[in-house]
């Protein structure tokens, strides 16, 4: 046997640990050098990368906007936090560093956030798309179904083949409600419209999203929509094949489809985050379930593409106004599912609470919800 030096992994471990210590010490020194303490420290956790051109970037840009509007706020931002006990540890660290408001920006952070919230009653938590409230945990999201209905209307006006393709991560209730809303919107202007759905089983796999998009376009779809973390792949593949697309999550994706872009539904969390931070600083923060809609400043309809005629834009805007006035509702009976069962009876209207229980796809949608 040859004499061996220290195990390389051990060397690596020692290196990484010492580097971390240096960074932490430097961070502490920097904070001490900064004389005035921050007005508020806000912690935000992201499930993915803040430059994904999608879900996470929308949250991150909301925080940037908050910092711009409220100078003196310090932000602790951590990316790629798994939806597990790791999320609890990250939140605990943020609180140790003085965070008084924590935005747990992914669905799966709900239980970790509830656990940490119980231990720290003086810290306020906000969670998007959560079902639960706690004395110091609020929840916020927006009714995306109204927006998808409007997108569907535009798609129904633009399509020549009367077919749309929809790439969806998973068949969960809110996503099914979005697909149904899109389809009902399209059918309101094109009674023979057909929506074909492919579930990829994952929020991020561009290769699979590209193959799914091709499969849908091969079936004659000429409009593509998607519910995955980043809309870039689907929008780009559609553009290359001369199809239209409707984006989601993030407005910046429009540049990938200079020809085929119809419009998109995006989140503009900034104004809402400013309100959260102000309320925490004023001491007026309350635990509430905020549920916006197309009238809110944080759910925006992206600019329409050059292919969309002004008449379509006007018709969509008119319907948006009708929704805000309460004259137009998305799920207004009678609505059948794609097996012919009556799901919403004549005269019945589904509300936001019903969307969380939706387990069916509407008549004319081709896909399996389970």
């Amino acid at each position, binding site marked *: *046997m040859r004499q061996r030096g220290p195990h*390389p992994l051990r060397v690596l471990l020692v290196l990484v640990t010492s580097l971390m210590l240096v960074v932490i010490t430097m961070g502490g020194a920097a904070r001490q050098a900064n004389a005035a303490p921050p007005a508020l420290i806000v912690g935000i956790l992201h499930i993915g990368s803040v430059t994904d051109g999608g879900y996470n970037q929308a949250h991150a840009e909301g925080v940037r906007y908050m910092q711009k509007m409220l100078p003196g706020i310090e932000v602790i931002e951590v990316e790629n936090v798994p939806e597990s006990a790791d999320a609890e540890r990250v939140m605990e660290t943020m609180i140790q560093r003085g965070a008084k408001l924590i935005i747990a920006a992914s669905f799966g952070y709900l239980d970790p956030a509830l656990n940490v919230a119980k231990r720290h009653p003086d810290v306020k938590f906000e969670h998007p798309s959560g079902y639960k409230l706690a004395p110091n945990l609020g929840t916020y999201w927006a009714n995306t179904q109204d927006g998808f209905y409007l997108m569907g209307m535009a798609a129904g006006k633009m399509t020549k083949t009367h077919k749309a393709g929809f790439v969806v991560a998973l068949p969960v209730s809110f996503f099914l409600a979005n697909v149904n809303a899109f389809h009902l919107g399209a059918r309101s202007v094109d009674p023979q419209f057909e929506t074909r759905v*492919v*579930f990829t089983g994952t929020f991020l796999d561009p*290769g*699979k999203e590209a193959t799914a998009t091709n499969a849908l376009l091969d079936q004659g779809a000429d409009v593509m929509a998607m519910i995955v973390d980043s809309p870039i792949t689907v929008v780009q593949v559609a553009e290359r094949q001369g199809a239209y697309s409707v984006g989601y999550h993030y407005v910046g994706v429009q540049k990938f489809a200079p020809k085929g872009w119809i419009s998109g539904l995006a989140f503009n969390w900034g104004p809402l985050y400013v309100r959260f931070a102000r309320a925490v600083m004023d001491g007026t923060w309350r635990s509430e379930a905020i549920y916006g809609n197309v009238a809110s400043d944080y759910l925006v309809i992206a600019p329409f593409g050059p292919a969309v005629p002004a008449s379509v834009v006007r018709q969509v805007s008119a319907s948006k106004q009708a929704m805000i006035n309460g004259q137009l509702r998305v799920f207004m009976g009678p609505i059948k599912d794609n097996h012919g069962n009556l799901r919403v009876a004549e005269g019945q209207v589904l509300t936001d609470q019903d969307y969380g229980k939706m387990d069916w796809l509407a008549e004319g949608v081709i896909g399996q919800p389970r």
Partner: protein
Amino acid sequence: MSVPFVESVLLGAILSGMPVLYAALGEVIVERAGVVNLGLEGVMLMGAVTSFASTVRTGSAALGVLAGATAGGLFNLILALLVVTRQANQLASGLALMFFGAGVSALLGAPYIGSRIAGLNPLQIPGLAHLPYLGPLFRSDILAYLAIPAAALVWWGLFRTRWGLSLRAVGENPAAAYAAGYSPPAIQYQALFLAGLFGGIAGADLSIGIVKTWAEWMTAGRGFIAVALVIFSRWHPLRIVWGAVLFGGAVALQLQFQARGAPVSPFLLDTLPYLLSLGVLLVWAGGRRHAAPASLGRVFEGTK
């Protein structure tokens, strides 16, 4: 209006199968030399990000592929340093390499997210591109055309050259290879570099060939599928082609079934590629020929 089923599936199979095929061709070289590289996922990510960034900067997809391959090759040398020179555990080092690659690629790629590239364009072969059924085979990008020649080249290199013989000898019994005058560490370094080139091309195929975008962890487990494919093919480069086509075809098939509205649960369809793989293993299992290299995963400590 709609495209025939066979053509659709074939095109989908090419799209889904190619990155896995290139990655597995690299992996079979290192495993034949006695090294398991579980860091393949990280190598692919490095190839994907480097080729995408180079394509953004230079506008040339050819340079992108070259840069991706080089990055993959150099990145694999880190594993060579760990497992050959420092004689560390291969499985642990491979996993460390994967996480390292994921992190470094995310860091390098961040400024390029949202960049637009033309990427590798499909090259149509006149006369063949519009054949019924087989048309999609002749409307692919250059990497798809080169995949089968690449597999043949790897086979020839491993089984028909003196270098391949020495490489396989190292994988079976490094002490014997050493006694015969070969240097197992040098051969393993070469194998890892070559494998890295293939892994880098696999990543490039994904980022500038298929989706023309960069996203963190965009390989989504394809590196591990490639490692499994090598075992599945019983360490034979030509059987890897069948494995990759089968796997890619199954992925394409399940997405096609959904797009056509087959009355089957999407959860069940999503398991199709893995069910098919299991099925083939059941049928093929038991053969002793071309089984694992005898010294796979073992540390060669020299003769001191």
